[in-house]
């Protein structure tokens, strides 16, 4: 049996799943001040009368880290940067307690300026004097050479052994100093609070006799073991929307191109599944206005939901962007799209007369019938979703390309279907798909798709191996792994090495059963040339376990 729990901003959902069938589901309001209580309210409800030893996996998606950062409750953190030449960070608005240290390496991993150790010591003193106990050390090109970062950490720890230090090269090997900086900073800021949460969750589960592995959903739609999350708390941001996408993925499991439309109370979230593969955001997740190196799904959130307030502005009917309360049919104060649907479909929800009265207040001054108004609201809603779906496809088609092949074979896809998720999906999604000229799917599990997504998502891992046969080294964009290579190193050896590392990491995480599900997604080789002769080769090999579902899960059965 699998348990999946999605702790959302408003509510917490959970499902208990066995052989593709949802045995039970539970829902409660999320208590932001005590997430653990929300989680266990759900777990206790789900596992009532269930033999605990039958539970083979518990997977959670949570907004904890997002909340810590959004509410400024993270730990006070210092940022020690080794940027070298380039952007003048001294004049940029970065983070408080930032220290800039001289020293640099270049794109080939060559040290071009020594580290100014005196400056590091001075920074350490100021950090310590300010009573700051967390620091992130980030150097430009540290994925290509981490020497300066390592040395700076060593110096800081020697003088101030209590300082907890996050280093950039272990956080991200992607070439993007600004994103690595933000990610390392937020990691240092949230690590301790996340660890407390993780430990208490694990303990509470064990106390209840649930001894299965515990996984946490990441923004990229994959899971990681709870123990690994201690090093990468920021990977959990936006795991809620990721859970919905994985839920849609689990409900479809095909090679088609789908747009996932998750209609909530206040917002509608859109995501794309292209030929069976969820699409990632090209620039990584944005946290507090900063791009990060965290892979996340390409999502578009529109301020439009089932409970959005419908108002009259002059002769215009507006929907949202805010939500005042429940839909009128459930006793809410104002007409909503849910009321419009309710009226048109003869009141399956709450009190039909309440919907009708709320709508009448808007229809009367416009001099139209309630039916006409209801149709207008639904149309406007569908218009907006349709427009945003098109915008998303266009943005995807306009992604930059760096090769002739990519431009000539410009991607363009045909949308196969709209997958609806969330409360109001059943009413709206068929209308949206009709507009777009494709099919729609609103599964009977659509309302708990987020928890379902968490329950069945498999672990993901993405590695890029960079090898330079002239400088005779390789490194991984992961965990700061690097090493030497022989001069006869070639494309096949690079691929083999990338695969080997992936298998080792998966084994270390206790996830060896997924290691054979990897695929190469990047193969690049360049000659390095001096004068007119080839002096070496550069390889970039990408290998990943893409988002998918765990082996036990084949398809949903309802």
């Amino acid at each position, binding site marked *: 049996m699998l348990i999946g729990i999605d702790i959302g901003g408003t509510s917490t959902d959970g499902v208990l799943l066995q052989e593709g069938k949802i045995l039970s589901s539970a829902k409660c309001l999320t208590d932001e001040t005590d997430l653990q209580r929300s989680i266990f309210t759900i777990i206790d409800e789900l596992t009532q009368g269930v033999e605990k030893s039958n539970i083979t996996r518990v997977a959670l998606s949570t907004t904890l880290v997002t909340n810590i950062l959004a509410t400024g409750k993270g730990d006070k953190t210092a940022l020690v940067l080794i940027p070298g*030449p*380039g*952007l*003048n*960070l*001294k*004049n940029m608005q970065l983070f408080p307690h930032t220290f800039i240290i001289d020293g*640099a390496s*270049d*794109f*080939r991993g060559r040290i*071009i*300026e020594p580290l100014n150790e005196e400056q590091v010591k001075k920074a350490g003193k100021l950090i310590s004097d300010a009573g700051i106990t967390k620091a992130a050390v980030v150097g*430009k*090109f540290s994925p290509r050479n981490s020497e300066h970062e390592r040395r700076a950490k060593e110096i800081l720890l020697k003088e101030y052994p209590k300082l907890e230090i996050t280093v950039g090269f272990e956080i991200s090997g992607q*070439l*993007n*100093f*600004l*994103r690595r900086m933000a990610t390392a900073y937020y990691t240092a800021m949230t690590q301790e609070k996340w660890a407390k949460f993780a430990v208490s969750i694990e303990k509470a589960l064990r106390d209840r006799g649930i001894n299965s592995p515990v996984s946490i959903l990441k923004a990229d739609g994959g899971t990681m073991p709870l123990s690994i999350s201690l090093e990468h708390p920021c990977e959990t941001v936006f795991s809620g929307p990721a859970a919905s996408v994985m839920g849609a993925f689990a409900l479809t499991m095909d090679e088609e191109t789908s747009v996932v439309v998750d209609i909530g109370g206040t917002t509608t979230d859109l995501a794309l599944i292209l030929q069976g593969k969820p699409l990632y955001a090209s*620039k990584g997740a944005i946290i507090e206005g900063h*791009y990060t190196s965290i892979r996340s799904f390409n999502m578009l959130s529109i301020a439009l939901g089932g409970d959005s307030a419908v108002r009259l502005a002059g002769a215009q009917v507006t929907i949202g962007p805010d939500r005042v309360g429940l839909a009128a049919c459930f006793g809410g104060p104002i007409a909503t799209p849910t009321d419009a649907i309710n009226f048109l479909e003869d009141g399956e929800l709450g009190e039909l007369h309440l919907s009708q009265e709320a709508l009448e207040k808007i229809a009367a001054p416009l001099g139209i019938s309630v039916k006409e108004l209801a149709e207008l609201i639904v149309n406007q809603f569908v218009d907006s979703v349709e427009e945003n779906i098109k915008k998303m496809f266009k943005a995807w088609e*306009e*992604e*930059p*390309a*760096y*090769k*002739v*092949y990519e*431009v*000539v074979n410009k991607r363009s896809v045909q949308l196969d279907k709209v997958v609806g998720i969330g409360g109001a999906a059943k009413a709206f999604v068929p209308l949206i798909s009709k507009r777009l000229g494709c099919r729609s799917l609103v599964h009977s599990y659509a309302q708990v798709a987020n928890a379902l997504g968490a329950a069945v998502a498999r672990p993901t891992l993405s590695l890029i191996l960079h090898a330079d046969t002239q400088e005779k080294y390789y490194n991984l964009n992961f965990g700061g792994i690097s090493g030497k290579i022989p001069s006869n190193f070639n494309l096949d050896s690079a691929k083999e090495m990338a695969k080997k590392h992936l298998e080792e990491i998966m084994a270390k995480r206790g996830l060896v059963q997924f290691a054979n599900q990897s695929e190469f997604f990047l193969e*690049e080789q*360049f*000659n*390095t*040339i001096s*004068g*007119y*002769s*080839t002096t070496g080769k*550069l390889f970039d090999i990408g290998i990943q376990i893409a988002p998918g579902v765990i082996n036990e899960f084949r398809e949903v059965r309802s």
Partner: protein
Amino acid sequence: MKKRLCKERTGLVFFPAFDWAISPTHPEREERLLYTRDQLFEEGIMDLPQILQLEPRLAEIKDIARVHFCVPDIEFQATKAHLIAAGSAIAIADSLMKGEIKNGFALVRPPGHHAMRVVHGNRGFCNINNEAVMVEHLRKVYGIKRLAIIDTDVHHGDGTQDIYWHDPDVLFISFHQDGRTLFPGSGFMDELGGPLAFGTTLNIPLPPGTTDEGILFVLDKLVLPVLDIFQPELVINSAGQDNHYKDPLANMNFSTQGYATLNKKLAPDIAVLEGGYSIETALPYINMGIIMAMAGIDYSNLYEPDYYKYSFKEDSKRLKILETMVEQLFEVFNKREVIQANNREKAGAFYERQRHIFYDTDGINEKQLETVKVCPSCPGYITIDSQASHGRSKNSKIYCIVIPIQACSDCQEKAREKYEKKLMDNSGDFQYIYLQDRVADNYRQYDCRKQKEIVL
């Protein structure tokens, strides 16, 4: 200069063409912008709100036909990579004209400034002139009338010069290493444009070793004042990066700081990458510098790893040479309208010039006879009789007619008649006959053997 109201972003098309090379160890190869990519990505410059990254796209065949006579045809000379480089420059131009960006940089390859009007093959690593294709697009689609192209590549921009030699509305200024010491061996002070466009081509042959100070002197004392007088609607930087002190193919002493300052002062509306082959030690820094300068980002912390080992002050002897050149050229430029009027009066019905053009990359020798109709009311239509020998066996001979975009109705008519007449004659002298009618935006190529016409 006319300033448009627009958003405060700098557009960037980054198209490194990682799957295109002239040959595996040629300087114009796959790896050329690899370290530039690493530097731009690591800096995270595309994440900054000042930058809008635009997607590369293919130019259309007709965009190429607006500028070039390709032998045997456009598809043969313009590979997909060339179409993308030119198309990316157009993408920047479109975005600028739509007001999405305040300026833009087409950081693309392959380069183009050695490609002339007639294209028999590759010259100086170029087949298609990206700037000219973009300029003709700007004129045709947006009705831009006056433009300036400032060629800052270390090599003389002889292709662009050729295309705008007779065009009084496109100011072409090239500063480059003295042609006596570097390919293509042209770009001397006496190359000042055709008789009716005299003074709208300016060449500053720089002595080898010229530094930041020297180049910025030329910019301050000649280029900027000339631009101020000419008043173009748009300024384009044909942005080669081989003046750099590390470039393996040239001998100048220009630094990243110099490049950035040049672009800050010149403030081009559009920059298009040209040459530059110090792919590790210069390009990553210069490209950053150009982007930063155009986007108004502080570039004071941007320098090469060995920058502080060198001096970029000019020596007094070279500075004297530069002063003399700048003075003389400025004088010629100021007298250009008088000289043009004189030329018009003195010339007969047609002006003629004979030329010999060498294609270094492809080893082709071309002989041209060019004629320009001397017209009292427009720059006149142009004909080109071109003969190319590709070594022992292969020869081609073509005849081209250009109707410039400013052509008067009389010249348009005469030129079109001439084309029809050439087709009727079909004397057997030529393999192809071309008509480039920029006014009607109509481009014709007649295959004399097959007696078949292609119309674009």
